[in-house]
């Protein structure tokens, strides 16, 4: 379906109706000194379909074709062909969810099934219909915790340094102007995780929430039971930030500690979304029933119509702008509909057993890769904590030079940690998902050995 914007004639009629001469006149109120001259001419002229096709082919040829061993928040998993064949059917192919409560039954049913799967994967009562991405989902979770925990006045949130650095930056950006204080929890440099006993200094203080990553950014498993119990004992809300694939094997956040976490969120990309240079991805969020009024986004419910036929409907959207107007407490007003459709199909096709195999194989491959790489002189594991499918390794040579040399040989060898963690200057994190076979791991090891010899 072509997108046909208004014609010159339409524009003229609209201009006449409101008494202006050009679109530019609409921006008159912006002072001249704030405007960038020549902005419109900075955008090149349009191209026709043939020219665009050619440009894209040329650019596409520059895409990486090697093997990716970078995890660090975005994971290359096998996506069954059927996922995107179904997701891109005309009936599903839109990023938007309807505002009309009962329109598009098919879309609503997909979202309902998605929510059911996510709630079950997280071991919590309810799931919303998704958010933009993992980082903004965590920011929304922090704001939600502040709203839900009305007895806590401090708006102090404990944020482990083991949470993805990009997530921490996004959270700080979104919440710091809303009176929320983020206090960074240092990690144990030996184990690569948070030590529960270190939280003792916060006991007796008004802490609104504790963020608990699992696995953490280093791939290390945190002591989630201890941390969740600490939060409960100290009247703080607990917010899990998790990788959904790993939940096929690890305890779901709803079962951490004595009573489970209050809120769980994370990045949905591992569930059927390609890496595609960083997006679009989607965020997910689940919570206990008692916090549902504070959950951002929307919830689709199942009901019956007047004739008793089963149907689906927008059930709850308590924080959104069209309900709360200027009092809206979340800027999430839609969801990542298309990504969620793909992930729902992915989860349906994989099933619980399939997802478990993906998680097991990714874990096993990453461990095997680390073993092979650590057999090389000077390469060693950095942390003693158990890791899932990211492992931090120390290299005996400057990291960026090594990664560049690896890339030239078609191996994207890992994520550089030194920029965000100065103490890990000579370290990378590596990941080998189920997409890698033994020969790939051997290839990485032999190329790394070569590179390090040079």
């Amino acid at each position: 379906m072509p997108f046909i914007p208004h014609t010159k004639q339409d524009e003229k009629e609209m201009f006449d109706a409101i008494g202006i001469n050009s679109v530019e006149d609409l921006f008159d109120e912006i002072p001249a000194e704030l405007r960038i001259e020549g902005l419109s001419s900075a955008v090149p002229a349009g191209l026709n379909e043939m020219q665009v096709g050619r440009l894209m082919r040329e650019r596409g040829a520059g895409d990486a074709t090697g093997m990716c061993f970078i995890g660090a928040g975005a994971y290359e998993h096998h996506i069954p062909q059927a996922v995107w064949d179904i997701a891109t059917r005309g009936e599903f192919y839109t990023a938007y969810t309807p505002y009309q409560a009962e329109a598009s039954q098919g879309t609503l049913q997909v979202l309902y099934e998605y929510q059911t799967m996510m709630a079950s994967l997280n071991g919590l009562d309810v799931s919303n219909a998704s958010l933009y991405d993992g980082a903004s989902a965590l920011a929304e979770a922090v704001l939600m915790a502040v709203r839900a925990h009305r007895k806590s006045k401090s708006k102090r949130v404990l944020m482990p340094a083991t949470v993805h650095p990009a997530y921490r930056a996004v959270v700080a950006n979104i919440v710091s102007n809303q009176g929320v204080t983020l206090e960074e929890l240092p990690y144990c440099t030996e184990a690569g995780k948070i030590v529960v006993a270190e939280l003792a200094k916060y006991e007796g203080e008004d802490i609104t929430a504790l963020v608990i990553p699992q696995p953490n950014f280093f791939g290390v498993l945190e002591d989630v039971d201890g941390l969740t119990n600490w939060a409960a004992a100290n009247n703080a809300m607990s917010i899990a930030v998790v990788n959904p694939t790993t939940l096929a094997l690890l305890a779901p956040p709803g079962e951490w500690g004595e009573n489970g976490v209050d809120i769980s969120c994370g990045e949905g990309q591992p569930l059927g979304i390609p890496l595609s240079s960083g997006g679009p991805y989607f965020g997910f969020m689940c919570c206990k029933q008692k916090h549902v009024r504070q959950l951002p986004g929307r919830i689709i419910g199942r009901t019956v119509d007047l004739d008793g036929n089963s149907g689906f409907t927008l059930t709850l959207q308590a924080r959104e702008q069209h309900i709360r107007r200027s009092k809206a407490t979340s800027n999430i007003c839609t969801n990542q509909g298309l990504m969620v459709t793909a992930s729902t199909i992915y989860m349906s096709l994989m099933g619980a057993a399939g997802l478990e195999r993906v998680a097991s194989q990714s874990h096993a491959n990453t461990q095997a890769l680390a073993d092979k790489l650590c057999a090389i002189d000077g390469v060693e594991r950095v942390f003693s904590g158990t890791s899932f499918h990211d492992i931090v390794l120390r290299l005996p040579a400057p990291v960026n030079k090594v990664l560049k040399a690896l890339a030239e040989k078609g191996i994207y060898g890992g994520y550089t940690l030194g920029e965000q963690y100065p103490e890990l200057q000579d370290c990378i994190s590596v990941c080998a998902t189920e997409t890698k076979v033994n020969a790939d791991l051997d290839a990485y090891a032999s190329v790394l050995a070569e590179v390090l010899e040079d």
Partner: protein
Amino acid sequence: MSEAPANLKYTKSHEWVEVQEDGTVKVGITDHAQELLGDMVYVEVPEVDAAVSAGEECAVVESVKAASDIYSPVTGEVVAVNEDLADTPDLVNNHPYGDGWIMQVRMTEEGELDEMMDADAYVESVTEEE
């Protein structure tokens, strides 16, 4: 015109106040207000012990149409809230002056009651609005 009992005091923003025997006041929204808002789906009541100020937001009522702030008619400390609204928010629709009350406040500024409208004045102001 909707109902407005004579023993209550009223605000322009459609809250009512009922003085209790112990001197505290109960606060709710008027019949007229609930009619305008429509079917209630949720009422966010304040915390017990919370300090409220006259004219400032103290609660949120959410209907199928919109979420609206409720402004405290008085200044003081919340001594009780209507816990029943959590499960049955429609009490606000069905019994706006009775079981649909929202909070009970110990006032610190007694004079505030004198500035409110009586039932007749409230009915008149609502009629003008319409």
